[in-house]
């Protein structure tokens, strides 16, 4: 039931939101708001950004726990043991 409602909401609301967002007056309003409150733009960008995958900080080291370098593996195993102990 919940999934069906969610799907129906998606089907109805997303096209509506897209239609509304295309309206020139709304676009002007958004631009004006962003111009007046630059911090708002930064916040929106940060909200969009946080859903992106994490950037590969150490591109020379895979981020797969099954295939780590020896140093990373040692630290990972120790951290895992301690976090599991915390959970229990």
């Amino acid at each position: 039931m919940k999934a069906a409602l969610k799907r129906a909401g998606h089907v109805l609301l997303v096209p509506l939101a897209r239609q509304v967002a295309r309206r020139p007056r709304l676009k002007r309003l958004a631009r004006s708001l962003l111009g007046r409150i630059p911090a708002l733009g930064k916040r929106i960008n940060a909200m969009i950004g946080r859903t992106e995958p994490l950037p590969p900080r150490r591109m020379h080291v895979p981020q797969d726990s099954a295939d780590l370098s020896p140093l990373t593996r040692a630290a990972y195993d120790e951290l895992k043991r301690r976090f599991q102990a915390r959970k229990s």
Partner: protein
Amino acid sequence: MRIVIDMQGAQTASRYRGIGRYTTALTRGILRNAGRHDIWIVLNGALEESVTQIRADLAGHIPHERIRVFETPGRIAEIDARGAPRRRAAEMLREQFIALLAPDLVLVTSLFEGFHDDAVGSVGTFIDGARTAVILYDLIPLLNPASYLDSPYLRQCYMRKIASLQRAGLLLSISDYAREEAIAALGLPPERVVAISTAVDESFVPAALEPDELDAVRRRFGITRRMLMCAPGGFDPRKNIQGLMTAYSLLPRALRESHQLVLASHLAEAQQSALLAHAGSLGLAASDLVLTGYLDDADLVALYQAADLFVFPSLHEGFGLPALEAMACGTPTIASNTTSLPEVIGLDEALFDPAHPQSIADRIARVLTDSSLYERLRRHSRTQAAKFSWDATAERALRALERHAVMTPATPARSTDDLMQALVAVEDLPGDEQTLVQLASCVAAFPDLAAPSRLFVDLGHIPPGTQGAPEGLGGIGAIPDLCAAQSAVRVALSASGGVWHYRHAPANGTSSSQPGPVADMRTCDRLVIHAGTTAAHRAAWTDGLYASLYRLGVQLYIVADGIPGTPDGADNGLAWFGKMLGCASGVICTSQAVAEAFAAWCAAHEFERRLPPFDVAAPARLA
């Protein structure tokens, strides 16, 4: 004495503003005046573009192994409140990273970073902050919370930074005023705050532009009359630009008709609209006001030369660098009689009360109509500006650090065991696989000063789906010589897991061997690659592998026993190899003839970046 400088102030968006300039210039000043002290630099690996830039800028000023890069566990910007546990972990990881460099003193160039980006700034969250010094620019948000800390979350973030500031053993303030302000506002003992002052960039000297060049600059910005100039260094109510405009409107008509008011600063559209609306309400004509937008230093210096008078009406500053820049360019300068500005200006008759536009207008009018006062101000500008220099500021900082180190007990690194206990104790820090891998990567990147520098030798590429024999050895004459060296670690490129990286090559190099584990390269390690690279090397370059190793401080050597071959036999598309050469620490040629042929080949391809030094030697010398 070993001094570790955390240069994050030159890594975030601050690098385009005063804090970034201050960080870079002070660091260079300290390096010039370090004497017997060892200077080390610490950078944040999450702000990767700036790491490349700073490494390139400081090359030749500091040995590359003294620039160390710490890692952060994913996104930690304050703006995302959900990242708070990771941020706490990042603070502890950074403090431990720095402590492992065994510093006698740590100098943090900017603590108030990391709201919008992944900078990490903290003192005393894991390692005692007694031997940490922090540059103090100002406490303007703390003293004006209604204007700057309007949301509870922002206030909470700022106050955490203030708590860190209070845990620092020493504050180095950029002005006497900022020192007094910190002592009063934070209740610090006076001996814990030392004023080290500041200075301007060497490019701020009187411009020697010819009249036609000056006219061209004026035309470009729509300046048609003589000019009063203000470069506020950002748009902010405390900069009092509207007060200056009101003062301009109060000037005698003749002065207004002969002078335009030029505001040299980046302004958002809404800010421009507000200023134009204010000008309209004052009855100013459109031509009275010139908004230049962002200016580079060359244009700024040219406009200083063109200006009759520089006016700096700010209500609150930690120092007031634009006023000193104008004076260094020889421009007569007047400024507010508040906060730090009297010590910058150094002349009572060049000051006014910024709260009263009439006071500003009276001072402008007097300077423009009294030729003897005008000449006095012009002479005073250069004399006063000459009192400030980066060498003097760096000397003050070094003396303050030396005194502090004598009086304060050392704060050594704690054990990794302690750190892991502290990480586990961070409230709400998840123990999911991704977080654990990120934390483990940060721990694995910790410096180990006792570890010897290792020599990695690139044997080629392990193709996907094979069991370990690297391809690319065919025809490479010099590399096997290197492999014979006992200390050499044989590695090969791999793209397993979707990320280009190096793995240990199979011990016996046979196809029956399993691929080795991922190679963990560290600062000071050397990686040797043959100039006859493969398509895999090109792909790895495009993926950012070699740039990443450069940022980390791994030295790349290219061994040439002939001119470079191309993967597909074609001679085009080699720009990437030119860029890789730019990242290299050296090209080792097996003979003089090879060196000459290689250099000629590079010249023919007109690679854009600087070429590394060429050395004629047996490659085995590297081992």
